[in-house]
Protein backbone atom coordinates (compact mmCIF):
# COMPACT_ATOMS: atom_id res chain seq x y z
CA UNK A 1 0.00 0.00 0.00
CA UNK A 2 1.60 3.28 -1.08
CA UNK A 3 1.47 6.57 0.80
CA UNK A 4 -1.21 8.03 -1.42
CA UNK A 5 -3.47 5.06 -0.72
CA UNK A 6 -3.78 5.67 3.00
CA UNK A 7 -7.47 5.82 3.72
CA UNK A 8 -9.42 7.77 6.29
CA UNK A 9 -9.93 4.52 8.17
CA UNK A 10 -6.20 4.05 8.68
CA UNK A 11 -5.68 7.58 10.00
CA UNK A 12 -8.79 7.04 12.12
CA UNK A 13 -7.46 3.78 13.56
CA UNK A 14 -4.29 5.53 14.78
CA UNK A 15 -6.32 8.34 16.38
CA UNK A 16 -8.75 5.86 17.93
CA UNK A 17 -6.07 3.69 19.49
CA UNK A 18 -4.17 6.67 20.93
CA UNK A 19 -7.38 8.11 22.40
CA UNK A 20 -8.47 4.71 23.68
CA UNK A 21 -5.12 4.10 25.40
CA UNK A 22 -4.88 7.54 27.02
CA UNK A 23 -8.40 7.24 28.42
CA UNK A 24 -8.16 3.53 29.18
CA UNK A 25 -4.66 3.24 30.69
CA UNK A 26 -5.45 4.83 34.09
CA UNK A 27 -8.67 2.82 34.20
CA UNK A 28 -6.64 -0.34 33.52
CA UNK A 29 -4.34 0.42 36.46
CA UNK A 30 -7.43 1.10 38.57
CA UNK A 31 -8.93 -2.21 37.46
CA UNK A 32 -5.78 -4.09 38.46
CA UNK A 33 -5.79 -2.39 41.85
CA UNK A 34 -9.45 -3.26 42.40
CA UNK A 35 -8.98 -6.89 41.38
CA UNK A 36 -6.04 -7.20 43.74
CA UNK A 37 -7.99 -5.61 46.62
CA UNK A 38 -11.02 -7.86 46.08
CA UNK A 39 -8.86 -11.00 45.99
CA UNK A 40 -7.22 -9.93 49.22
CA UNK A 41 -10.61 -9.43 50.85
CA UNK A 42 -10.55 -5.63 50.81
CA UNK A 43 -13.05 -3.32 49.11
CA UNK A 44 -10.49 -1.09 47.44
CA UNK A 45 -10.94 2.21 45.59
CA UNK A 46 -13.28 2.44 42.59
CA UNK A 47 -11.77 1.78 39.16
CA UNK A 48 -11.92 5.46 38.17
CA UNK A 49 -9.92 6.52 41.25
CA UNK A 50 -6.71 6.79 39.17
CA UNK A 51 -8.38 9.38 36.93
CA UNK A 52 -9.60 11.34 39.96
CA UNK A 53 -6.06 11.39 41.36
CA UNK A 54 -4.67 12.54 38.02
CA UNK A 55 -7.24 15.36 37.81
CA UNK A 56 -6.38 16.46 41.32
CA UNK A 57 -2.64 16.43 40.58
CA UNK A 58 -3.05 18.34 37.31
CA UNK A 59 -4.80 21.18 39.14
CA UNK A 60 -1.93 21.63 41.59
CA UNK A 61 1.04 23.96 41.45
CA UNK A 62 4.33 22.81 39.87
CA UNK A 63 7.35 22.44 42.17
CA UNK A 64 10.92 21.57 41.30
CA UNK A 65 13.93 20.65 43.47
CA UNK A 66 16.30 23.61 43.90
CA UNK A 67 19.42 22.27 42.20
CA UNK A 68 17.74 20.37 39.37
CA UNK A 69 18.05 21.38 35.72
CA UNK A 70 15.47 21.67 32.95
CA UNK A 71 15.70 17.92 32.36
CA UNK A 72 13.69 17.25 35.51
CA UNK A 73 10.71 19.02 33.96
CA UNK A 74 11.24 17.55 30.48
CA UNK A 75 11.51 13.87 31.47
CA UNK A 76 7.79 13.22 32.22
CA UNK A 77 6.84 14.79 28.90
CA UNK A 78 9.43 12.62 27.10
CA UNK A 79 8.05 9.54 28.85
CA UNK A 80 4.45 10.26 27.82
CA UNK A 81 5.41 11.41 24.31
CA UNK A 82 7.55 8.34 23.46
CA UNK A 83 4.85 6.03 24.78
CA UNK A 84 2.18 7.77 22.68
CA UNK A 85 4.40 7.41 19.59
CA UNK A 86 4.71 3.70 20.39
CA UNK A 87 0.93 3.45 20.71
CA UNK A 88 0.50 5.16 17.34
CA UNK A 89 2.92 2.71 15.70
CA UNK A 90 1.56 -0.49 17.26
CA UNK A 91 -1.07 -2.32 15.21
CA UNK A 92 -3.73 -2.55 17.92
CA UNK A 93 -6.97 -2.18 15.98
CA UNK A 94 -5.96 -3.15 12.45
CA UNK A 95 -3.00 -4.87 10.79
CA UNK A 96 -3.14 -2.28 8.00
CA UNK A 97 -1.84 0.68 9.97
CA UNK A 98 -1.06 4.01 8.36
CA UNK A 99 2.42 4.14 9.91
CA UNK A 100 3.56 0.85 8.39
CA UNK A 101 7.17 1.94 7.91
CA UNK A 102 7.87 2.73 11.54
CA UNK A 103 5.97 -0.16 13.01
CA UNK A 104 9.07 -2.21 13.68
CA UNK A 105 9.46 -4.20 16.88
CA UNK A 106 13.04 -3.02 17.39
CA UNK A 107 12.03 0.63 17.00
CA UNK A 108 9.24 0.14 19.53
CA UNK A 109 11.56 -1.48 22.07
CA UNK A 110 14.04 1.37 21.82
CA UNK A 111 11.33 4.04 22.03
CA UNK A 112 10.10 2.44 25.26
CA UNK A 113 13.69 2.36 26.50
CA UNK A 114 14.03 6.09 25.78
CA UNK A 115 11.21 6.79 28.24
CA UNK A 116 12.89 4.69 30.97
CA UNK A 117 16.27 6.32 30.43
CA UNK A 118 14.85 9.86 30.56
CA UNK A 119 13.10 9.06 33.84
CA UNK A 120 16.32 7.58 35.28
CA UNK A 121 18.30 10.67 34.22
CA UNK A 122 15.72 12.97 35.81
CA UNK A 123 15.94 11.00 39.05
CA UNK A 124 19.74 11.43 39.02
CA UNK A 125 19.20 15.12 38.29
CA UNK A 126 17.45 15.69 41.61
CA UNK A 127 20.63 14.74 43.47
CA UNK A 128 18.81 12.82 46.22
CA UNK A 129 20.03 9.47 47.52
CA UNK A 130 16.82 7.66 46.57
CA UNK A 131 16.84 9.06 43.04
CA UNK A 132 20.33 7.71 42.37
CA UNK A 133 19.51 4.37 43.95
CA UNK A 134 16.31 4.00 41.94
CA UNK A 135 17.93 4.90 38.63
CA UNK A 136 20.87 2.55 39.15
CA UNK A 137 18.46 -0.28 39.96
CA UNK A 138 16.25 0.53 36.99
CA UNK A 139 19.23 0.57 34.63
CA UNK A 140 20.48 -2.77 36.01
CA UNK A 141 17.08 -4.36 35.39
CA UNK A 142 16.62 -2.77 31.97
CA UNK A 143 20.12 -3.86 30.89
CA UNK A 144 19.14 -7.47 31.66
CA UNK A 145 15.59 -7.28 30.31
CA UNK A 146 16.33 -5.62 26.94
CA UNK A 147 18.55 -8.43 25.52
CA UNK A 148 15.91 -11.00 26.47
CA UNK A 149 13.21 -8.95 24.75
CA UNK A 150 15.27 -8.35 21.60
CA UNK A 151 16.19 -12.04 21.25
CA UNK A 152 12.55 -13.06 21.82
CA UNK A 153 11.55 -10.66 19.03
CA UNK A 154 14.04 -12.42 16.77
CA UNK A 155 12.22 -15.70 17.38
CA UNK A 156 8.90 -14.12 16.39
CA UNK A 157 10.41 -12.38 13.38
CA UNK A 158 12.15 -15.49 11.99
CA UNK A 159 9.09 -17.31 10.51
CA UNK A 160 7.86 -14.23 8.60
CA UNK A 161 11.36 -12.89 7.76
CA UNK A 162 10.38 -9.43 9.00
CA UNK A 163 10.46 -7.58 12.29
CA UNK A 164 7.56 -5.40 11.18
CA UNK A 165 4.72 -5.77 13.69
CA UNK A 166 1.76 -5.82 11.27
CA UNK A 167 3.53 -8.51 9.18
CA UNK A 168 4.13 -10.69 12.28
CA UNK A 169 0.52 -10.31 13.44
CA UNK A 170 -0.91 -10.97 9.98
CA UNK A 171 1.42 -13.96 9.56
CA UNK A 172 0.27 -15.62 12.75
CA UNK A 173 -3.37 -14.96 11.77
CA UNK A 174 -2.82 -16.84 8.50
CA UNK A 175 -1.02 -19.77 10.12
CA UNK A 176 -2.85 -20.70 13.33
CA UNK A 177 -0.46 -23.66 13.75
CA UNK A 178 2.31 -21.17 14.52
CA UNK A 179 0.64 -20.19 17.75
CA UNK A 180 1.56 -23.48 19.46
CA UNK A 181 5.09 -23.94 18.13
CA UNK A 182 7.84 -24.24 20.76
CA UNK A 183 9.45 -20.96 19.72
CA UNK A 184 6.26 -18.99 20.29
CA UNK A 185 5.59 -20.61 23.67
CA UNK A 186 9.16 -19.93 24.80
CA UNK A 187 9.04 -16.37 23.46
CA UNK A 188 5.72 -15.88 25.27
CA UNK A 189 7.35 -16.87 28.57
CA UNK A 190 10.23 -14.47 27.95
CA UNK A 191 7.83 -11.67 26.97
CA UNK A 192 5.73 -12.08 30.12
CA UNK A 193 8.77 -11.90 32.41
CA UNK A 194 10.20 -8.88 30.59
CA UNK A 195 6.85 -7.07 30.63
CA UNK A 196 6.53 -7.61 34.39
CA UNK A 197 10.06 -6.23 34.85
CA UNK A 198 9.62 -3.27 32.49
CA UNK A 199 6.34 -2.15 33.98
CA UNK A 200 7.53 -2.60 37.56
CA UNK A 201 5.01 -5.21 38.70
CA UNK A 202 5.50 -8.06 41.16
CA UNK A 203 7.70 -10.12 41.52
CA UNK A 204 10.28 -7.57 40.30
CA UNK A 205 8.94 -4.43 41.95
CA UNK A 206 5.94 -3.80 44.17
CA UNK A 207 4.00 -0.80 42.84
CA UNK A 208 2.05 -0.43 46.09
CA UNK A 209 4.93 0.20 48.50
CA UNK A 210 7.24 3.05 49.42
CA UNK A 211 9.67 0.87 51.36
CA UNK A 212 13.09 2.38 50.65
CA UNK A 213 14.97 -0.93 50.61
CA UNK A 214 12.92 -2.43 47.82
CA UNK A 215 11.41 0.31 45.68
CA UNK A 216 12.57 0.86 42.12
CA UNK A 217 9.98 2.79 40.14
CA UNK A 218 8.68 4.58 43.23
CA UNK A 219 12.19 5.82 44.00
CA UNK A 220 12.41 7.40 40.55
CA UNK A 221 9.28 9.48 40.95
CA UNK A 222 9.80 10.39 44.59
CA UNK A 223 10.66 14.05 43.88
CA UNK A 224 7.81 14.62 41.44
CA UNK A 225 4.65 16.40 42.46
CA UNK A 226 1.65 18.11 40.92
CA UNK A 227 1.25 18.01 37.13
CA UNK A 228 4.70 16.43 36.65
CA UNK A 229 3.72 13.52 38.88
CA UNK A 230 0.46 13.21 36.94
CA UNK A 231 2.47 12.87 33.71
CA UNK A 232 4.80 10.25 35.22
CA UNK A 233 1.85 8.22 36.52
CA UNK A 234 0.05 8.54 33.18
CA UNK A 235 3.23 7.55 31.32
CA UNK A 236 3.76 4.46 33.46
CA UNK A 237 0.15 3.34 33.01
CA UNK A 238 0.36 3.96 29.25
CA UNK A 239 3.50 1.85 29.11
CA UNK A 240 1.80 -1.02 30.92
CA UNK A 241 -1.19 -0.77 28.58
CA UNK A 242 0.86 -0.76 25.39
CA UNK A 243 2.97 -3.70 26.61
CA UNK A 244 -0.14 -5.74 27.41
CA UNK A 245 -1.72 -4.79 24.07
CA UNK A 246 1.49 -5.84 22.30
CA UNK A 247 1.50 -9.15 24.16
CA UNK A 248 -2.14 -9.86 23.32
CA UNK A 249 -1.80 -8.98 19.63
CA UNK A 250 1.49 -10.84 19.09
CA UNK A 251 0.41 -14.07 20.74
CA UNK A 252 -3.40 -14.01 20.58
CA UNK A 253 -4.06 -12.02 17.39
CA UNK A 254 -7.71 -13.05 16.92
CA UNK A 255 -10.17 -10.23 16.48
CA UNK A 256 -7.79 -7.66 14.99
CA UNK A 257 -9.25 -6.01 11.89
CA UNK A 258 -7.68 -7.12 8.59
CA UNK A 259 -10.26 -5.33 6.43
CA UNK A 260 -10.88 -1.60 6.53
CA UNK A 261 -14.58 -1.57 7.39
CA UNK A 262 -16.53 0.03 10.20
CA UNK A 263 -17.92 -3.22 11.61
CA UNK A 264 -14.54 -4.91 11.82
CA UNK A 265 -13.16 -1.80 13.54
CA UNK A 266 -15.84 -1.84 16.22
CA UNK A 267 -15.33 -5.59 16.77
CA UNK A 268 -11.55 -5.13 16.88
CA UNK A 269 -11.78 -2.34 19.49
CA UNK A 270 -14.11 -4.40 21.68
CA UNK A 271 -11.96 -7.54 21.39
CA UNK A 272 -8.78 -5.56 22.09
CA UNK A 273 -10.25 -3.99 25.22
CA UNK A 274 -11.44 -7.40 26.41
CA UNK A 275 -8.07 -9.07 25.75
CA UNK A 276 -6.04 -6.35 27.49
CA UNK A 277 -8.45 -6.28 30.45
CA UNK A 278 -8.24 -10.08 30.75
CA UNK A 279 -4.43 -10.01 30.69
CA UNK A 280 -4.42 -7.21 33.29
CA UNK A 281 -6.75 -9.19 35.56
CA UNK A 282 -4.51 -12.24 35.14
CA UNK A 283 -1.42 -10.19 36.08
CA UNK A 284 -3.20 -8.71 39.11
CA UNK A 285 -4.44 -12.12 40.23
CA UNK A 286 -0.92 -13.50 39.83
CA UNK A 287 0.43 -10.66 41.96
CA UNK A 288 -1.71 -11.78 44.89
CA UNK A 289 -0.07 -15.20 44.81
CA UNK A 290 3.61 -14.20 44.58
CA UNK A 291 5.95 -12.34 46.88
CA UNK A 292 8.45 -9.76 45.68
CA UNK A 293 11.82 -11.26 44.79
CA UNK A 294 14.89 -10.05 46.63
CA UNK A 295 16.67 -7.52 44.48
CA UNK A 296 19.66 -9.84 44.11
CA UNK A 297 17.39 -12.62 42.83
CA UNK A 298 15.92 -10.45 40.05
CA UNK A 299 18.91 -11.13 37.72
CA UNK A 300 18.12 -14.86 38.04
CA UNK A 301 14.58 -14.26 36.82
CA UNK A 302 15.75 -12.11 33.92
CA UNK A 303 18.53 -14.56 33.03
CA UNK A 304 15.77 -17.17 32.87
CA UNK A 305 13.88 -14.94 30.44
CA UNK A 306 17.04 -14.64 28.36
CA UNK A 307 17.45 -18.44 28.26
CA UNK A 308 13.82 -18.82 27.20
CA UNK A 309 14.29 -16.36 24.35
CA UNK A 310 17.56 -17.95 23.17
CA UNK A 311 15.89 -21.37 23.20
CA UNK A 312 13.04 -19.81 21.21
CA UNK A 313 15.42 -18.56 18.53
CA UNK A 314 17.25 -21.90 18.36
CA UNK A 315 13.98 -23.82 17.99
CA UNK A 316 12.93 -21.39 15.27
CA UNK A 317 16.19 -22.22 13.47
CA UNK A 318 15.80 -25.98 13.93
CA UNK A 319 12.20 -26.15 12.85
CA UNK A 320 12.50 -23.74 9.94
Amino acid at each position, binding site marked *: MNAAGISVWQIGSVAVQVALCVVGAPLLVGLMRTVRCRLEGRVGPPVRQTWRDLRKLLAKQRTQPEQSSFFFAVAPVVLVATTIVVIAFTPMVTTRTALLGGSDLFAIVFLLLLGSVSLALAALDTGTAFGGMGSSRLMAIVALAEPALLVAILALAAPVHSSSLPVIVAGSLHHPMWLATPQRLLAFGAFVIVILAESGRLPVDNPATHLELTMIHEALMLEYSGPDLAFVVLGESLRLTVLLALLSNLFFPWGIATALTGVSFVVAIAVLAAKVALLAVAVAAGEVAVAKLRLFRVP*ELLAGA*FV*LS*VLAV*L*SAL*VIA
Partner: protein
Amino acid sequence: MTNHSVAAALLALTSGTVLLCAALALWRRAARGIVSALRVQGYALAATAAVLGVQLHEPLLLVTSGLLVAVKGVAIPMLFGRLVRLDPASSETDPVVNVPASLVAAVVLTLVAFVATRPIVESVRGVPITLVPFGFATVLIGFFVLVARRKAVSQMVGLLLVDNGIGLVALLLTTGVPLLIELGGTLDVLLVVVVLRVLVTRMHAQLGVLDLDSLQELRD
Protein backbone atom coordinates in the same frame (compact mmCIF):
# COMPACT_ATOMS: atom_id res chain seq x y z
CA MET B 1 -2.85 -29.39 6.82
CA THR B 2 -1.54 -32.94 6.56
CA ASN B 3 -1.16 -35.49 9.32
CA HIS B 4 2.56 -35.40 8.70
CA SER B 5 2.94 -31.69 9.51
CA VAL B 6 0.82 -32.08 12.64
CA ALA B 7 3.09 -34.90 13.80
CA ALA B 8 6.15 -32.78 13.02
CA ALA B 9 4.78 -29.86 15.03
CA LEU B 10 3.91 -32.16 17.98
CA LEU B 11 7.38 -33.72 17.91
CA ALA B 12 8.97 -30.26 17.94
CA LEU B 13 6.78 -29.30 20.89
CA THR B 14 7.54 -32.41 22.98
CA SER B 15 11.29 -32.47 22.32
CA GLY B 16 11.42 -28.71 22.94
CA THR B 17 9.73 -29.38 26.29
CA VAL B 18 12.45 -31.92 27.16
CA LEU B 19 15.13 -29.25 26.66
CA LEU B 20 13.09 -26.60 28.46
CA CYS B 21 12.75 -28.86 31.51
CA ALA B 22 16.54 -29.29 31.60
CA ALA B 23 16.90 -25.49 31.66
CA LEU B 24 14.21 -25.28 34.37
CA ALA B 25 16.11 -27.79 36.53
CA LEU B 26 19.05 -25.39 36.34
CA TRP B 27 16.89 -22.34 36.97
CA ARG B 28 14.96 -23.50 40.04
CA ARG B 29 16.57 -23.61 43.48
CA ALA B 30 13.86 -25.47 45.40
CA ALA B 31 14.39 -29.25 45.34
CA ARG B 32 10.66 -29.70 44.80
CA GLY B 33 10.81 -27.51 41.69
CA ILE B 34 13.80 -29.39 40.30
CA VAL B 35 12.03 -32.73 40.77
CA SER B 36 8.86 -31.48 39.10
CA ALA B 37 10.93 -30.30 36.11
CA LEU B 38 12.27 -33.86 35.91
CA ARG B 39 8.75 -35.28 36.09
CA VAL B 40 7.48 -33.08 33.25
CA GLN B 41 10.55 -34.04 31.24
CA GLY B 42 9.72 -37.74 31.70
CA TYR B 43 6.19 -37.17 30.42
CA ALA B 44 7.49 -35.13 27.46
CA LEU B 45 9.89 -37.94 26.55
CA ALA B 46 7.04 -40.46 26.71
CA ALA B 47 4.89 -38.17 24.55
CA THR B 48 7.70 -38.00 21.96
CA ALA B 49 7.77 -41.79 21.81
CA ALA B 50 3.98 -41.93 21.50
CA VAL B 51 3.85 -39.38 18.65
CA LEU B 52 6.62 -41.24 16.80
CA GLY B 53 4.77 -44.52 17.35
CA VAL B 54 1.54 -43.18 15.92
CA GLN B 55 3.30 -41.49 13.00
CA LEU B 56 5.31 -44.59 12.01
CA HIS B 57 2.59 -47.12 12.97
CA GLU B 58 4.95 -48.89 15.40
CA PRO B 59 2.93 -50.39 18.26
CA LEU B 60 6.15 -51.24 20.12
CA LEU B 61 6.94 -47.53 20.45
CA LEU B 62 3.61 -47.08 22.23
CA VAL B 63 4.69 -49.77 24.70
CA THR B 64 7.98 -47.89 25.17
CA SER B 65 5.99 -44.73 25.78
CA GLY B 66 3.93 -46.46 28.47
CA LEU B 67 7.13 -47.76 30.08
CA LEU B 68 8.62 -44.24 30.07
CA VAL B 69 5.50 -42.81 31.73
CA ALA B 70 5.60 -45.48 34.42
CA VAL B 71 9.33 -45.19 35.20
CA LYS B 72 10.39 -41.62 34.36
CA GLY B 73 7.07 -39.89 34.88
CA VAL B 74 5.82 -41.65 38.01
CA ALA B 75 8.27 -43.99 39.76
CA ILE B 76 11.50 -41.96 39.79
CA PRO B 77 9.90 -38.60 40.75
CA MET B 78 8.03 -40.44 43.53
CA LEU B 79 11.31 -41.79 44.92
CA PHE B 80 12.71 -38.26 44.78
CA GLY B 81 9.61 -36.84 46.42
CA ARG B 82 10.22 -38.99 49.50
CA LEU B 83 13.85 -37.85 49.60
CA VAL B 84 12.82 -34.20 49.47
CA ARG B 85 10.38 -34.71 52.31
CA LEU B 86 13.14 -36.43 54.29
CA ASP B 87 15.36 -33.35 54.12
CA PRO B 88 13.48 -30.10 53.53
CA ALA B 89 16.84 -28.29 53.39
CA SER B 90 17.87 -30.07 50.18
CA SER B 91 17.30 -26.95 48.08
CA GLU B 92 20.25 -25.41 46.24
CA THR B 93 21.02 -22.49 48.54
CA ASP B 94 24.65 -22.12 47.53
CA PRO B 95 25.45 -23.75 44.16
CA VAL B 96 29.05 -23.93 42.89
CA VAL B 97 28.11 -21.74 39.91
CA ASN B 98 25.42 -19.16 40.67
CA VAL B 99 22.08 -19.32 38.88
CA PRO B 100 22.43 -16.47 36.32
CA ALA B 101 25.91 -17.71 35.33
CA SER B 102 24.70 -21.29 34.98
CA LEU B 103 21.78 -20.13 32.82
CA VAL B 104 24.20 -18.32 30.53
CA ALA B 105 26.31 -21.50 30.51
CA ALA B 106 23.19 -23.44 29.50
CA VAL B 107 22.73 -21.07 26.55
CA VAL B 108 26.35 -21.63 25.51
CA LEU B 109 26.00 -25.41 25.88
CA THR B 110 22.85 -25.36 23.76
CA LEU B 111 24.69 -23.43 21.06
CA VAL B 112 27.54 -25.98 21.23
CA ALA B 113 25.01 -28.78 20.84
CA PHE B 114 23.50 -27.10 17.78
CA VAL B 115 26.88 -26.59 16.14
CA ALA B 116 28.13 -30.09 17.02
CA THR B 117 25.07 -31.89 15.65
CA ARG B 118 24.99 -29.86 12.45
CA PRO B 119 26.67 -32.62 10.31
CA ILE B 120 24.04 -35.15 11.42
CA VAL B 121 21.17 -32.75 10.85
CA GLU B 122 22.40 -31.71 7.41
CA SER B 123 23.16 -35.24 6.22
CA VAL B 124 19.57 -36.39 6.65
CA ARG B 125 16.65 -34.10 5.99
CA GLY B 126 13.59 -35.14 7.92
CA VAL B 127 11.67 -33.97 10.94
CA PRO B 128 12.75 -36.39 13.67
CA ILE B 129 16.44 -35.99 12.78
CA THR B 130 16.41 -32.17 12.75
CA LEU B 131 15.29 -32.23 16.38
CA VAL B 132 18.41 -34.13 17.54
CA PRO B 133 20.11 -30.91 18.83
CA PHE B 134 17.41 -30.66 21.53
CA GLY B 135 18.41 -34.06 22.93
CA PHE B 136 22.12 -33.34 22.69
CA ALA B 137 21.70 -30.01 24.49
CA THR B 138 19.76 -31.80 27.24
CA VAL B 139 22.71 -34.20 27.71
CA LEU B 140 25.18 -31.30 27.99
CA ILE B 141 22.98 -29.37 30.45
CA GLY B 142 22.64 -32.57 32.51
CA PHE B 143 26.43 -32.83 32.73
CA PHE B 144 26.58 -29.19 33.77
CA VAL B 145 24.06 -29.83 36.57
CA LEU B 146 26.30 -32.69 37.76
CA VAL B 147 29.29 -30.34 37.91
CA ALA B 148 27.70 -27.16 39.20
CA ARG B 149 25.28 -28.32 41.92
CA ARG B 150 26.20 -29.45 45.41
CA LYS B 151 23.17 -31.23 46.81
CA ALA B 152 22.64 -34.96 46.37
CA VAL B 153 19.12 -34.57 44.97
CA SER B 154 20.17 -32.12 42.24
CA GLN B 155 23.16 -34.27 41.28
CA MET B 156 20.90 -37.30 40.86
CA VAL B 157 18.56 -35.15 38.77
CA GLY B 158 21.57 -34.17 36.65
CA LEU B 159 22.33 -37.82 36.00
CA LEU B 160 18.74 -38.41 34.96
CA LEU B 161 18.80 -35.36 32.67
CA VAL B 162 21.77 -36.93 30.87
CA ASP B 163 19.83 -40.19 30.58
CA ASN B 164 16.69 -38.48 29.27
CA GLY B 165 18.76 -36.57 26.72
CA ILE B 166 20.38 -39.77 25.47
CA GLY B 167 16.93 -41.36 25.34
CA LEU B 168 15.60 -38.47 23.24
CA VAL B 169 18.57 -38.63 20.82
CA ALA B 170 18.09 -42.39 20.46
CA LEU B 171 14.36 -42.01 19.82
CA LEU B 172 14.83 -39.32 17.18
CA LEU B 173 17.85 -40.84 15.40
CA THR B 174 16.77 -44.46 15.18
CA THR B 175 13.04 -43.70 15.39
CA GLY B 176 12.87 -45.99 18.36
CA VAL B 177 15.50 -48.39 19.69
CA PRO B 178 14.34 -52.02 20.05
CA LEU B 179 12.01 -52.44 22.99
CA LEU B 180 14.32 -54.91 24.70
CA ILE B 181 17.19 -52.40 24.85
CA GLU B 182 14.86 -49.60 25.97
CA LEU B 183 13.48 -51.88 28.69
CA GLY B 184 17.01 -52.77 29.86
CA GLY B 185 18.15 -49.13 29.86
CA THR B 186 15.12 -47.78 31.66
CA LEU B 187 15.15 -50.45 34.34
CA ASP B 188 18.91 -49.88 34.81
CA VAL B 189 18.23 -46.22 35.50
CA LEU B 190 15.46 -47.13 37.94
CA LEU B 191 17.87 -49.46 39.73
CA VAL B 192 20.55 -46.73 39.87
CA VAL B 193 18.05 -44.33 41.40
CA VAL B 194 16.98 -46.88 43.99
CA VAL B 195 20.62 -47.59 44.94
CA LEU B 196 21.45 -43.87 45.09
CA ARG B 197 18.38 -43.29 47.19
CA VAL B 198 19.47 -45.91 49.72
CA LEU B 199 22.92 -44.30 49.75
CA VAL B 200 21.50 -40.82 50.28
CA THR B 201 19.19 -42.01 53.04
CA ARG B 202 22.20 -43.48 54.87
CA MET B 203 24.10 -40.25 54.30
CA HIS B 204 21.21 -38.31 55.81
CA ALA B 205 21.16 -40.66 58.82
CA GLN B 206 24.92 -40.19 59.38
CA LEU B 207 25.37 -36.49 58.62
CA GLY B 208 21.91 -34.99 58.86
CA VAL B 209 22.40 -33.17 55.52
CA LEU B 210 22.33 -34.08 51.83
CA ASP B 211 25.28 -31.90 50.87
CA LEU B 212 27.97 -33.75 48.94
CA ASP B 213 30.60 -31.16 49.89
CA SER B 214 30.55 -32.47 53.45
CA LEU B 215 31.87 -35.84 52.21
CA GLN B 216 35.55 -35.01 52.14
CA GLU B 217 37.32 -37.43 54.46
CA LEU B 218 37.76 -41.16 54.26
CA ARG B 219 37.10 -43.22 57.39
CA ASP B 220 37.34 -46.93 58.18
